[in-house]
């Protein structure tokens, strides 16, 4: 009896040691690497080592007890319910505004991180990540089901895969699994979903992400965010300061930011839009955005930004991952923790 009990304890200890250790409640958690922030009528911030912080006023943050130490990369809040996703294919859920958390999914063996999550309502959502990682739930995360979207591939790859599929379905699935790009960011705009990813991937879906249409962009580097600014304008940012804008269903046009720091996120404010990135760079852009032809030989040392574009660098030069407006403030998450940015 004693042995049986002991073996039960050992088994549970093993399952927990994999990655299910409790996150360490750290005094310096607010200065740790924090990777995403979501706002409802409260704030949720997630980051490295399973750090989750919540705040009701945007000033005082409390770290929640979390059943994982895996780095969390993104979070989404709908009403009182919050989800957080991250490395080791982790999906966490809280039904009480981020106070207490349960694991809905965790598969370290996949060796793939989730990089973003979006919910339409408290039941329907998708989580996306590296190598085309794509999971959907219809029941608030009780069940998560994997999907693979070949439509996210560029047309040449899609054509190649279709040829394989005719011959061998299993090989097709295997090939698809390895060829899919990183999916970095998904943004909901009404019934539409926009997606930004690796190797020039920008795509839109009108059916909750079940099928995708790839945009044609003259850039092969990675995009990290795509945001509709209004009915007719979409802005995408990515590697080495690249910024592209699409107006009135037209072509994607280049916006010269004169920065070679990667831009991670876009935040539309009242009269301008800001793009935040590595090295603590913040690009302030007045609308309409000035577009130009990209110059592949331009040097950032000598570059003069066009009218309407100004660049700012925060003092500690920490990479800024994302920011939200909350309670009249702009709250950003950075590699050095939570920061309040000056508005306008």
């Amino acid at each position: 009896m004693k042995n049986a009990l002991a073996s039960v304890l050992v088994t549970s200890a093993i399952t927990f040691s994999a990655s299910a250790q409790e996150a360490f409640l750290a005094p310096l958690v607010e200065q740790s690497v924090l990777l995403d922030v979501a706002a409802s009528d409260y704030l949720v911030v997630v980051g490295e080592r399973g750090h989750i912080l919540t705040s009701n006023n945007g000033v005082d943050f409390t770290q929640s007890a979390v059943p994982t130490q895996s780095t969390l990369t993104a979070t989404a809040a709908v009403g009182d319910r919050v989800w957080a996703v991250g490395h080791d294919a982790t999906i966490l859920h809280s039904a009480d505004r981020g106070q207490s958390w349960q694991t809905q999914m965790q598969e370290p063996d996949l060796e793939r991180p989730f990089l973003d999550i979006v919910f339409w309502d408290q039941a329907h959502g998708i989580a996306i990540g590296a190598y085309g990682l794509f999971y959907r739930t219809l029941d608030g995360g009780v069940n998560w089901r994997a999907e693979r979207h070949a439509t996210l591939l560029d047309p040449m790859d899609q054509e190649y895969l279709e040829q394989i599929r005719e011959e061998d379905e299993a090989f097709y699935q295997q090939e698809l699994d390895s060829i899919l790009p990183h999916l970095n960011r998904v943004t909901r705009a009404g019934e539409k979903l926009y997606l930004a990813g690796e190797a020039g991937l920008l795509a839109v879906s009108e059916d909750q992400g079940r099928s995708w249409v790839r945009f044609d962009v003259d850039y092969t580097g990675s995009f990290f965010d795509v945001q509709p600014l209004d009915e007719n304008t979409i802005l995408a940012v990515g590697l080495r300061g690249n910024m592209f804008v699409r107006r009135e269903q037209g072509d994607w046009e280049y916006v010269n930011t004169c920065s070679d720091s990667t831009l991670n996120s876009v935040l539309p404010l009242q009269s301008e839009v800001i793009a935040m990135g590595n090295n603590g760079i913040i690009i302030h852009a007045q609308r309409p955005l000035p577009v130009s032809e990209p110059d592949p030989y331009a040097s950032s040392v000598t570059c003069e930004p066009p009218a309407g574009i100004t660049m700012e660098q925060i003092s500690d030069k920490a990479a800024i991952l994302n920011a939200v407006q909350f309670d009249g403030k702009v709250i950003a998450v950075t590699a050095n923790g939570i920061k309040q940015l000056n508005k306008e």
Partner: protein
Amino acid sequence: MSRIIHFLEHLIFGNRRLVVGLFALLTLFLGYQASNMKLDAGFEKNIPLNHPYMQTYMKHRKDFGGANNVLVSVCDRNGNIFNQNFFDTLKNVHDQLFFINGVNRSLVVSLFSPSTRFTEIVEGGFAGGPVIPADFNSANPRALELVAANIEKANIVGRQVSNDYSCAMVTAQLLDIDPQTGESLNTLALAGELESKLRGQFENDRISIHVIGFAKMIGDVADGAKDVVMFFAIAIAITAVMVYFFSRSIMLTILPLLCSVIAVVWQLGLLTVLGFGLDPMSILVPFLVFAIGVSHGVQMINAVEKRAVSGMGAKHAAMAAFHSLLIPGGIALLSDTVGFLTLLVIDIGIIRELAITASMGVAVIIFTNLVLLPVLMSFLQFGEHYVDRFANKEQHSERFWSWVAKCSYKKPAAWILAITTVLFVAGFMQSQHMKIGDLHAGAPSLHEDSRYNQDTFLITDRYEVTVDYLSVLVETSPEACTSHSVMKAIDDFQWRMENVDGVQSTVSLASVAKIVNAGYNEGNVKWQVLPRNQQTLVQAISRIPSSSGLLNGDCSVMPIILFMQDHKAETISRVVDAVKQFRKEFETDDMTFSLASGPVGVMAATNEAVAAAQIPMMAYVFGAVIALCLLSFWSVRATLSVVIPLFVVSVLAQALMTLLEIGLTVSTLPVIALGVGIGVDYGIYVLSTMSYRLKRGDSVQLAYTKALQERGSAVLFTGITLAIGVSTWVFSTLKFQMDMGILLTFMFLVNMLGAIIVLPALARFLWPKRNIDTNAD
């Protein structure tokens, strides 16, 4: 016993000229040796090499370099480094430092070293190169612009370039063994070269040079220590004037001083013969030897003079003085010697050297001041005039001494003991606040406004680097860095430590591997994790060379470097305790988190060794004093009357240290032991007369009055003279000499008061049946 003394007396005074001749020869020989004396400083002497932390440190020193480094900050006085003059100077400083003998050439790092590279992420992967390209031309403003951009990309602002771009750093590590001579590195010569070849050559109205590191610090201490010669001269002058007032005779002034100087010469000569140099940190010892010599010399001239006044001829007076002082003087000096020798138990090289230097110095006084001095005095002629003058003086002092003797009467004695008890309790409580280690920023041996400490403050202000770091060495099996679980344990432990108050930032192979992993994923911070996939982990780690100091060749040892806010003892012990606590959680059979390396690791070991040595040292010093008192007086009561005041004073001295914010360090630890050694002399001289009288059946009061008449003036005089001499150290350029000056002044004066005031009061109650005061007070 007295037969032996008798024999010695006849042997010595029977062959006076031979004795003087022998001493003269020895002095010539040792004086010649002493003239070859070298100042000698070494890093390792200052650390407890057998402490477990230092064992770890020594074991891995080859892989990770030592804690003995030099930081040279080259600053542009206009506050902007991007000009031709600055870059040319920086390059020259780099080259010059590279060629200074004793510098580990593979570890000289600055903007100009090829290992200073930048990496940037481009669409296809990485791009990078040296921060200063091979075709760099400092005259070209575009080249400077490019370097500015590269510095930004290389992420070295705050480390190799100051935060405000006003300075750039050249760092180097020092070897322990001089590659040219094969002997241990001459730190002082190196410090001199740093001063002349770097600062002397390149500092001008456009450039300032700031140098810190142990070698420079000890060099500055040695420079300051040269002032000791001046303080020595001042002390001799003061003492000479005082002795003259005491003895009213030029010859009687010259002789004790001469014999004390001979003691110093012998001591320095013997040190050289034994192959030691004089460390700047123990440069004060010769002065102590001189002081103790004078103290015994004055007793001797006092005794001779007393006998001469009573009508004896010089030779017989000298013989009688020799006879009566050999035992108390010998005992006192022997207890000093043994007391200082007990410092040998402390396993820190420099304290051991101090123990040898000081005990040898005190031992030679037995010869110079108890033998040579009376022999020399026996040649003197005391004229009638002299004898008259003193007879007069004796009468004056007799009145004074009978007044002082009241200390041994019941009522005053009770008051004295009550006040002593109160002082002791208060002092004891205060002394419990004694802090271990350095209490202030910068180098504690030097004043805060010294150039060295100002340079330290400038560098810590303008850069994010600090010389205050501690490495925890993760020791595990070869290739362990390719294991996710090992790396995660390091990373988790590191994060725990970063959250400890006093730790400013941390770095390890794990934390750098995470950043490299993000680099491999287009610099996306969301990938700043330790990859679970082994190939991916290896890919990240393979970009980190072992020259980074974060791993050894087969990555079986990986340091976690903790940068500290300061090196105060409390901060260090808090961080060390946290390491000991947290590592329990992460250690496995195959992975240990060992303390410690880095400058703060050395300090932690030193602090622990000093703290551990404090109580044993006191126990041994007092043990030696007690044993010798018991042996010589053959009386527990006599021993108690000597030791109790001594103990109270040493507790009060510790209380004084806490009040003056002097921490217990390698340099202040021996002061209390030295103080006890010096303080015991007074008690032994006073009590030896008393004990003789008490044994004859005299009352405590009479015995004490007699003791005062015989030796009181010498005791009082020595205490005041030595205190005045030592108190001039307050003006020293060296902070630790100033601290020692204050403490020793206190010990000299208060021990003297203890022997004159507290000792008789104690005696009054320790010999309860031998008093005449029942009616007298």
